[in-house]
């Protein structure tokens, strides 16, 4: 499948025809709706809140936010921002309830600190990995976006961004930028390894909340069918505990050298073993 991100800028790609096609396709509508509901489930909002929709497009996800019934904590108020005027035009003709803003997320989020309870973004932030002009860079745009988003969320707020990274480099670039901005970040993968794989970047502001940990592990706590893979622990405990000249230490050093491209002898059962005392 071709990726529109590779060919054009978002505001150029989503012209009048594309915007209409995107909004009227029932397949896209269904996918967007299910992803928005999943994001809402991750946000766990229990009272009517103010939500920022980044890359709101024609307001497909916003409609769901306004339609959350009272017993599930809704209806929420939302403000959407998008870079494509055509998409916003479709949103206007569909008479959505939220406020709309023509803005580029790579230029920051123009709201004062602590404005929103939550933020949601469906299939948008991968566009940040492309910079169309010479004076902007993907890293610069990512950092402006995440810094702005971090500031505009209130303490204890959450953001869920569903995105389609092109490869692992993009995926790591996006999550690293979020962590650098101060978020507690984690990625939830739905249907991993299948064609329908969906990635949700779950961002938290501030420390632990009432329902467990402050990061994604706290968010998914109690959800069914979620396996937690925490890569952080391996990094933390590994340091300082390995004794110098022990077998583990030697193996670690050998791995380091291998990563540098040096020629390293294969590890065997003799590695790190003391020689017999010579007579």
């Amino acid at each position, binding site marked *: 499948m071709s990726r529109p991100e590779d060919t054009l800028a978002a505001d150029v790609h989503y012209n009048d025809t594309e915007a209409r096609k995107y909004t009227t396709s029932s397949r896209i509508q269904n996918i967007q709706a299910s992803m928005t509901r999943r994001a809402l489930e991750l946000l766990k909002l229990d009272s009517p*809140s*103010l939500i920022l929709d980044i890359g709101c497009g024609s307001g497909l996800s916003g409609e769901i936010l306004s339609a959350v019934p009272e017993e599930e904590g809704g209806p929420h108020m939302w403000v959407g921002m998008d870079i494509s005027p055509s998409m916003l035009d479709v949103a206007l003709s569909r008479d959505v309830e939220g406020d709309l803003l*023509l803005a*580029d997320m790579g*230029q920051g989020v123009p709201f004062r600190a602590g404005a929103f309870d939550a933020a949601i973004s469906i299939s948008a932030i991968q566009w940040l990995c492309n910079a169309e002009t010479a004076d902007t860079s993907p890293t610069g745009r990512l950092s402006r976006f995440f810094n702005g988003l971090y500031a505009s969320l209130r303490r204890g707020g959450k953001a869920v961004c569903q995105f389609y990274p092109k490869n692992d480099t993009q995926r790591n670039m996006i999550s690293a930028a979020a962590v650098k901005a101060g978020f507690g970040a984690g990625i939830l993968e739905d249907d991993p390894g299948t064609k329908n794989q969906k990635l949700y970047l779950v961002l938290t502001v501030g420390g632990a909340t009432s329902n467990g940990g402050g990061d994604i592990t706290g968010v998914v706590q109690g959800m069914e069918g979620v396996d937690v893979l925490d890569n952080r622990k391996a990094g933390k405990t590994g340091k300082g505990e390995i004794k110098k000249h022990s077998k583990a230490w030697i193996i670690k050093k050998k791995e380091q050298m291998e990563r540098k491209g040096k020629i390293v002898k294969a590890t065997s059962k003799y590695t790190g073993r003391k020689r017999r005392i010579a007579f």
Partner: protein
Amino acid sequence: MKVLTLNFLTCAVKACKSSSDSFPLHPKDAELVHDDVEVNAQLLTNLLHRLDWKALRTTATELGFPDLPETAPTQEDLENDEKTLKDLHNLLIETQMMEGKLVCGHCGHEYAVREGIANFLLPTHLV
């Protein structure tokens, strides 16, 4: 665009981030419309402590509304007095700015508002 949103928007120009004049944005030549929306008391209560009351008073005066009280109503006021709730709902959520401009008090940049959509795209030299 709702007056509520106006209470949260700041100037997007990088140099204005540190200045206190960049908030609130000042509406200019504003055309307002009134849109009937169902009252959501819970939402207003949630938002109440997050509103910048001073900025809201400035905006309301600039839009030609009668002066708001000096201090923000408390949560009990909203719960007990239906009129306060209705007035706040009327101002924040039902009043929409459709056409006009938003002007930054620090750099003077004008953001155009058309059909209720504010244009926050910046030319590259201001980013």
